[in-house]
């Protein structure tokens, strides 16, 4: 929607395009943060058990619905004071993170764990099954129509104003999204780097059998990976809801594929890589819609995926995979 207004702005501008570019950069980074948060879930799960958690995008979708329910229950509106809104949003975030984690944990427990050690396609099929189940479950329980949410956080800063009146805006919402993403990224990187759980995860990633021989509870570690991924997806879900203001039961599929692209682009298994990949995908998508066509923005993202995989299969920050005979 705001892309539309930007498109019209480009026709007005004519002269200096610097401001327009800057605005798109800000929008792209915001979108990229959301993709990055989802991508972490893909990258962690792929790193540890080598499967595409196809249902991850739908966990993101479910979490945004939960966030919407809690926001409606709390009765938040734009007239609520900024301080109170932020406090309430923290409550919303925690609730939806917890419930999304339960969804993630249950999915792993019911659909993936029984198939561990089975051949590789089996969990992919159950993942697709779970994805269908989650989409239709939400469609039945929450309705098929799009859910609009009035913006809760308004205003922002005008960074630049051009002669013809085009302004470069940094909205409070965008500041919030980028800040929350940075904070959560730091927390999760610390968990991976410093805690025993993170150590166990890295060990399982390298060699699951050896890790279990050394006394690591592999099943529990994998469950925790799903929980962490789902919690981060819930953050992305709330951000998406607040930023776009419309959700429906189908947002998980496209967002999921793009986030997976981001994970692959950054180098699968690498956390900073997932974030970087998310930013790149967000920027590509935003610039594509701003300068070329909105209809084909998904084509741009999907083509990007193919191009990356063909020319840079190990991703930007990933380790090259060596195949041994």
């Amino acid at each position: 929607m705001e892309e539309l207004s930007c498109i019209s702005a480009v026709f007005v501008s004519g002269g200096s395009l610097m401001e327009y570019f800057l605005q798109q950069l800000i929008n792209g980074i915001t979108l990229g943060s959301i993709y990055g948060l989802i991508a972490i879930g893909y990258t962690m799960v792929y790193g540890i058990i080598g499967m595409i958690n196809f249902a991850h995008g739908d966990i993101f979708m479910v979490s945004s619905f939960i966030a919407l329910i809690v926001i409606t229950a709390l009765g938040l509106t734009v007239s609520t004071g900024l301080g109170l809104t932020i406090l309430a949003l923290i409550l919303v975030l925690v609730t939806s993170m917890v419930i999304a984690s339960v969804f993630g944990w249950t999915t792993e427990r019911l659909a993936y764990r029984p198939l561990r050690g089975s051949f590789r396609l089996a969990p992919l099929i159950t993942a697709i099954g779970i994805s269908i189940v989650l989409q239709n479950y939400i469609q039945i329980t929450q309705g098929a129509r799009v859910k609009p949410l009035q913006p809760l956080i308004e205003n922002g800063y005008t960074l630049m104003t051009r002669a013809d009146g085009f302004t470069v805006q940094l909205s409070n919402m965008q500041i919030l999204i980028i800040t929350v993403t940075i904070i959560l990224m730091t927390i999760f990187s610390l968990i991976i780097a410093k805690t025993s759980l993170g150590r166990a995860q890295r060990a399982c990633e390298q060699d699951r059998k050896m890790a279990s021989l050394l006394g690591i509870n592999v099943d529990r570690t994998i469950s925790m990976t799903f929980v962490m991924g789902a919690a981060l997806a819930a953050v992305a879900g709330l951000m998406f809801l607040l930023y776009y203001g419309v959700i429906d039961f189908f947002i998980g599929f496209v967002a999921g594929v793009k986030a997976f692209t981001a994970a692959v682009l950054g180098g699968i298994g690498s956390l900073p890589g997932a974030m970087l990949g998310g930013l790149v995908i967000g920027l590509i998508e935003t610039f594509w819609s701003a300068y070329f066509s909105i209809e084909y923005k998904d084509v741009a993202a999907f083509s990007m995926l193919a191009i990356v995989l063909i020319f840079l299969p190990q991703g930007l920050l990933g380790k090259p995979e060596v195949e041994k005979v």
Partner: protein
Amino acid sequence: MTDTANSGPQPGRHLDIPKVTKDLIVTALIATAIFGSTIAFRTVSAAGGLRLEVRYDVAFYVIAAVVVGRLLLWLFFWSKPAGTSAVEMPTSIKSGVAKISAKVGKGFAPTMLIFALVFPFLPFTDRYLLDLSILILTYVMLGWGLNIVVGLAGLLDLGYVAFYAIGAYSYALLAQYFGFSFWMCLPLAGILAAFWGIILGFPVLRLRGDYLAIVTLAFGEIIRIVLLNWYQFTGGPDGLSGIPRPSFFGLEFTRREGGFADFFGLDYSSIHRIVFMYFLILALALLTNFVTNRLRRLPIGRAWEALREDEIACRSLGLNTTSVKLTAFAIGGMFAGFAGSFFATRQGFISPESFTFIESALILAIVVLGGMGSQVGVVIASIAMIGGFEIFREAEQFRMLIFGLAMVVIMIWRPRGLISTRIPSIFLKEKKAVSADMVAQGEGH
């Protein structure tokens, strides 16, 4: 609960009460988090924003059902003494079952074929059943086509529906712009789909496994988005309508003079065309099966299966993996193209909505649930999936939900598919069925 556990439904069962109680409490908590959040509350649009609709009762029933279900599982399935698996069958029964199923298996395919041939003339066959079986046969054909790519060559393709779409749109557009007939378009649609298979195949040659899967998925989506947005050419979301029907050796299925009924001196009936369509798709499906079975015995088929097992070994033995993979994509795509133009002519109307990712997932599910590489398995899985889909037609809303759940449950129950033995395509002295675990189908090398 104590009572049931002490007496036990059957002697020899043992129930660890504290453990079960703890498990049930955890189940209840999880179910509350999942269903309590999403069923109990529902956001509905109201004046000036959203309003919350509360349905505690429904949520409570669902949670209670989950807990009771879990309790029943504990009582009847998981209460065996430790060390014995709950679902293990005695060896004698197992081998007996294997023998019987082997005997049944031998006669199964010919019986099915004969049944399929006489089906339209059976007394109970009506328009509805014919339509349903045409649909099932379409999926059988698609399943067999995808089986070449996934089951034989081991390339995981999540965008198979793209070729189906290309076939359908090829026919519809050729008929619309050039007035080509169905019989002219059928081979053209196949060639075009095969051509696109090669175009897709080239860039993804270096990819393997899940990466290949996700790129093919992206390809399928790209095709759909292009069809959706290229309004001047494809009609966009409105689709294409008025697609001409096929003729029987030049005889139209119309009431007019010189039509099919008139030529054979029959009374005109609209069922004639349906029966014709039925035999058309049956012939196309059988062609797919025949070609696949012959190809398996040719060098290219063996190369596919070798590639599936070990790509590096293939290359070191001098196989050109590029051409082997490309032929798999092209031939698989070609059959989807045939099926696509059949779909277009049967429906008379196509739109991008018919070619979503769900279709790809459905076809792949048919192949995997049937048992990859097994031709009979595809038939059984198609009947089960599409037939099951029809049974739940009443429960329109819950249909996809049940479909997804069935996919998960069947996969956990039989990860190797319903038909889990494989007949090797080459053998030394006698044909021996091997377990599916021995082959690398779908590993996606």
